[in-house]
């Protein structure tokens, strides 16, 4: 296969990955990495590098649309971004030392857990009193509703901060956005309103991925010939997915997609255990 043929095929596969990633809410990165490595035989490190830049593209593209809704809590995002960027840089540095097969196993496990998290119902605790650290960092804010702004308090900042460090490390190690772990931290640990969690998480994904991508670029893990069809394809696919998501909110469709993600995750972990990467 020559460059034209392979670029075309990878481009088409990336469109589907972006579509799948946006319809399942997991992001394009977690889908394109198994596709590149398992179906196209691409080295895992090149796949991670290409995925990272596509993650930045989809996050920034989506953020432009989210901003107007006014849900993002920029203070929370920026404060926790200290944890995710540090984690991302650590994870990206770790990627150079950790054996590729071990990365594949971690990838499979994280993908499975992310898919599980995205299907769990969002349980909210009772509204609690303001907490000291949230007050000190002036994180409490209000979410716009039809009845006017509704105030909320930020809880367990330390747990959120820790989880964000982990999300950053996974993002740097695996080349994904770690959106599921970020939403877990914001929505479950810190008890933010769901819309605030998803939009703030999306903002953070782009910044985290940029921190990792810098390290990958200087390490020579980002190959332009590969990243070109992946970035354009995933971006196109996720834009299509965002349109489709508005038009069809079929549960059955999401179940089918989740099954695909499940198979990919098991294949990655299995391939890693068998030493195929």
């Amino acid at each position: 296969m020559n460059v034209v043929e392979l670029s075309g095929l990878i481009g088409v596969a990336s469109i589907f990955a972006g579509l799948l990633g946006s319809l399942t809410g997991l992001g394009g990165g977690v889908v394109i990495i198994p596709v590149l490595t398992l179906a196209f035989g691409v080295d895992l490190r090149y796949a991670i590098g290409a995925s990272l830049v596509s993650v930045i593209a989809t996050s920034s593209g989506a953020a432009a649309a989210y901003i107007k809704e006014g849900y993002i809590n920029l203070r929370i995002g920026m404060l926790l971004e200290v944890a995710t960027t540090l984690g991302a840089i650590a994870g990206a540095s770790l990627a150079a030392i950790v054996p590729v097969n071990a990365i594949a196993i971690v990838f499979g496990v994280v993908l499975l857990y992310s898919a599980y998290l995205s299907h769990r119902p969002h349980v909210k605790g009772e509204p609690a009193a303001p907490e000291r650290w949230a007050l000190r960092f002036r994180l409490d804010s209000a979410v716009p509703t039809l009845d006017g702004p509704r105030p909320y308090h930020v809880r367990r900042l330390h747990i959120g901060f820790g989880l964000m460090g982990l999300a950053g490390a996974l993002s740097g190690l695996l080349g994904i956005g770690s959106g599921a772990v970020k939403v877990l931290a914001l929505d479950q640990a810190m008890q933010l309103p769901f819309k605030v969690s998803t939009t703030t998480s999306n903002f953070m994904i782009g910044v985290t991925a940029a921190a990792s991508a810098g390290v990958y670029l200087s390490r020579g893990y980002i190959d332009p010939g590969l990243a070109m069809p992946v970035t354009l394809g995933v971006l196109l696919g996720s834009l299509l997915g965002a349109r489709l998501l508005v038009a069809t909110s079929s549960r059955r469709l999401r179940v089918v997609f989740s099954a695909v993600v499940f198979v990919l995750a098991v294949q990655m972990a299995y391939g890693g255990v068998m030493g195929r990467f």
Partner: protein
Amino acid sequence: MSASEGWSDARVETAVAVLLRLGVGVASTLVAFGGAVYVARHGAEAPRYGAFRGEPMELTTVAGILHGARAGSGRALIQLGLLTLIATPIARVAFSLLTFALQRDWMYVIVTFIVLSLLLLSVTGHLS
């Protein structure tokens, strides 16, 4: 609390949305253009993504990429597009720093400065 001093929230939001769209738009255009140049010149060659080699210096440093892109190299042009993409969230953080400064919110100026420094160190290759 709000950005009432100077910049209104709506104005900041519009500016950030424009910044992000512009970043992604310019980046994708550069990637697509560089890709066309690369495929036109090297389309018939056999790609080698199966074995990891690492990219040459011209494609891993900001100076190297700029130099290659000016010479019209397709791969360097793609890389310049990817660099623009990486720069987009960084520009957004820089913009937030400015917003916090205009609001005289010094605690968050410091927080944002830390994040921005880490990002700039990462992209200039000081952390790898």
